């Protein structure tokens, strides 16, 4: 007869109760911090079958299988899946096993002990069990051993990753303090200790290929020693207790927090406050994996890797060093690569914008002068305004006026394609509002947006072509231009080519294409510009294309970055782009164009320019 209780389970039971309470209270706090509207949205999303199904799918994919990491780095994907899925399955299968073969069967036990046994029995089941030879029991112990082996193989990769990050495809990893090291060590030792504890008693409790044959026969030489066995069970329980107690204060908090974040995200919520509600869920979900360090353009300058998303989030979480947080917020280029690569999809840029909103500016903007602006083309007689419905409107944006090559090329393309077009801001435009939004001055940006909306609506056109991805982003997201189709000129030119409206001579010139952040990562416009270039010449591959394309360095997202630091980023990006010896660099953003042109050894052109060259050649 085995006992049904032993004091060694107490450290685990106490720490587990603590963690469960901590997580539940934390979750309730986050939900209460959400704005009322968001909270309602969230609760509703939990009930609707469609969103509930999506929640379930995402929880399984992201929390257990870690499909996002698999896609980028298969070895790291396996590491996470083996530990997460393995652990989860051990808990689930362990529960079924302990219910089926409970040592409490047929016994009269007090209610409290029954409750407590629900916590510890599945975890320490082998200690309280007697080997059963039925097929069902054998299948259970095989499954338990299988998942235990899976976890141990994952931990093996984790140890390799810690010692030699390059072996798993990481250049730089996050640096940690002693506390994090301790938690990690406790996590790593949980399962080897479980293996030893279960093996040491396998002659009584039974087991499968791992614990019984490998563990008991080989490691313990087939001898059962009660004292030694007790030592391992105690160590296993204490180790679990250390991990569970420290979990809420370590990066492993991402394990419970991620589940909540997925639910909140699927409800369509966004960060509005830098330290409340959704942002808190994001901050606690950061596992400090450091995948964002290698991709961040700022890491090019040696000491600037300390400003990357993972350190930013860690600083917020620590709740100290507000100055550091503010400086990091203002330095970020807002290119969005960290979000693209983040396995949890933490949108740190939204936290940064929310943080920037908090800055107090004593002097308020005054755009009253815009009221006097009646029409962009003040020189043009206002007679044909009503006949514009079939016209295509071209809005170059303020940035494109710095690069007249683009506006001239676009005008030519419109003419050659026989398009009935109107160049709305030929005499200069007001800013689209995106740069203002990036500084966190949302209300000021809204004033600019309102004025532009008014002027564009006045023209009555149904199609709007933009030349600047910065404009494109804010036009798509903030402008309410009902019924007007908004296109970036890469999309527009691609349409013209597909409809055979442009006859381009293909040359054998080699082009490298640079994806502007606000066009590629923000809207996934990767194929249109590539189609266009395919029709003009040869497209060469850069070191990192598409969603991993690097920032040009000129981004207006950063407020404080100095020109020297920007130049380092620009040089590096040019190096990446010219990897396969292109003749020219092609981009689709006036800001990128201007930034590259200063430092590039080869010519930099806008996509519209090379189209015009192809037309003339």
């Amino acid at each position: 007869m085995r006992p049904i209780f032993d004091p060694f389970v107490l450290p685990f039971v106490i720490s587990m109760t603590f963690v469960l309470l901590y997580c539940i209270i934390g979750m309730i706090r986050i939900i209460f911090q959400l704005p009322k509207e968001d909270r309602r949205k969230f609760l509703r999303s939990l009930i609707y079958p469609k969103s509930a199904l999506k929640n379930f799918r995402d929880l399984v994919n992201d929390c257990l299988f870690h499909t996002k990491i698999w896609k980028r780095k298969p070895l790291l994907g396996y590491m996470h899946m083996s530990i997460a899925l393995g652990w989860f399955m051990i808990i689930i299968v362990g529960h079924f096993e302990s219910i089926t073969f409970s040592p409490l069967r047929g016994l009269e036990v007090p209610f409290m002990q029954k409750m407590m046994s629900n916590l510890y029995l599945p975890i320490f089941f082998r200690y309280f069990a007697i080997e059963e030879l039925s097929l069902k029991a054998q299948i259970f112990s095989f499954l338990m051993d299988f998942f235990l082996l899976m976890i141990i193989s994952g931990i093996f990769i984790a140890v390799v990753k810690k010692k030699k990050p390059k072996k798993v495809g990481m250049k730089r990893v996050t640096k940690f303090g002693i506390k994090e090291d301790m938690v990690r060590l406790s996590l790593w030792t949980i399962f080897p200790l479980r293996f030893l504890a279960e093996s040491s008693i396998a002659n009584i409790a039974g087991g499968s290929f791992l614990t019984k044959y490998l563990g008991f026969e080989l490691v313990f030489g087939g001898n059962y020693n009660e004292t030694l066995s007790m030592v391992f069970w105690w160590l296993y329980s204490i180790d679990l207790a250390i991990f569970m107690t420290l979990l809420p204060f370590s990066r492993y908090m991402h394990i419970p927090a991620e589940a909540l974040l997925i639910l909140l995200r699927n409800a369509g919520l966004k960060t509005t406050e830098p330290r409340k509600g959704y942002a808190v869920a994001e901050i606690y979900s950061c596992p400090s994996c450091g995948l964002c360090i290698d991709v961040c353009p700022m890491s090019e300058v040696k000491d600037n890797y300390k400003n990357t998303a993972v350190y930013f989030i860690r600083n917020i979480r620590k709740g100290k060093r507000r100055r550091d947080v503010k400086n990091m917020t203002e330095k970020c280029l807002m290119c969005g690569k960290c979000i693209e690569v983040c396995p949890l999809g933490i949108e740190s840029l939204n936290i940064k914008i929310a943080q920037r909103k908090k800055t107090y500016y004593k002097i308020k903007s005054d755009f009253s002068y815009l009221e006097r602006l009646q029409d962009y083309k003040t020189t043009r007689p206002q007679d044909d305004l009503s006949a514009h419905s079939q016209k295509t409107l071209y809005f170059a944006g303020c940035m494109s006026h710095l690069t007249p090559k683009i506006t001239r090329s676009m005008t030519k393309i419109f003419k050659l394609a026989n398009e009935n077009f109107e160049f709305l801001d030929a005499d200069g435009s007001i800013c689209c509002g995106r740069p203002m939004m990036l500084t966190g001055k949302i209300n000021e940006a809204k004033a600019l947006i309102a004025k532009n909306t008014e002027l564009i609506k006045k023209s009555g056109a149904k199609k709007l072509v933009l030349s600047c991805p910065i404009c494109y982003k804010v036009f798509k997201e903030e402008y309410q231009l009902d019924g007007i189709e908004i296109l970036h000129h890469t999309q527009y030119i691609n349409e013209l080519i597909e409809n055979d409206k442009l006859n381009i001579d293909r040359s054998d010139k080699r082009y490298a294409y640079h994806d502007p952040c606000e066009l590629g990562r923000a809207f996934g416009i990767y194929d249109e510009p590539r189609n266009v270039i395919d029709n003009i010449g040869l497209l060469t591959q850069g070191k990192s294309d598409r969603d991993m394309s690097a920032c040009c360095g000129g981004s207006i997202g950063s407020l404080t970055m100095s020109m020297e630091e920007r130049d380092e980023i620009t040089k590096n990006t040019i190096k990446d782009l010219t990897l396969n010896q292109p003749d020219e660099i092609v981009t689709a953003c006036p800001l990128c164009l201007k930034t590259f042109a200063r430092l590039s050894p080869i010519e930099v052109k806008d996509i519209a320019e090379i189209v015009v060259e192809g037309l003339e050649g």
Partner: protein
Amino acid sequence: MDNVDLKLFNKIEALNPDINTCMACGLCTATCTAGNFTDMSFRKIILMLQRGKDKEAIELVKKCMMCGKCMMICSRGINTRNILLSITRIYNEEQNI
């Protein structure tokens, strides 16, 4: 010049040392988006602040749209946007009017 109180300007200077490399070439003024519609001129703002004409400078600062073209074009690589933001943070509208 001696009577000018440069306390606030010195604060800007401490945050943005590059402000002193300005040679008043006027590229920023030529490209300014707001300058297309008003008398906004970043070069003028710096000169005014250095000479203690805070009130006039602030009137210009208010018109900025933050587009960042002046920063792209600046021949001295001055981070004009951040200087402008620093001014709106440090100078106080009420106090000078």
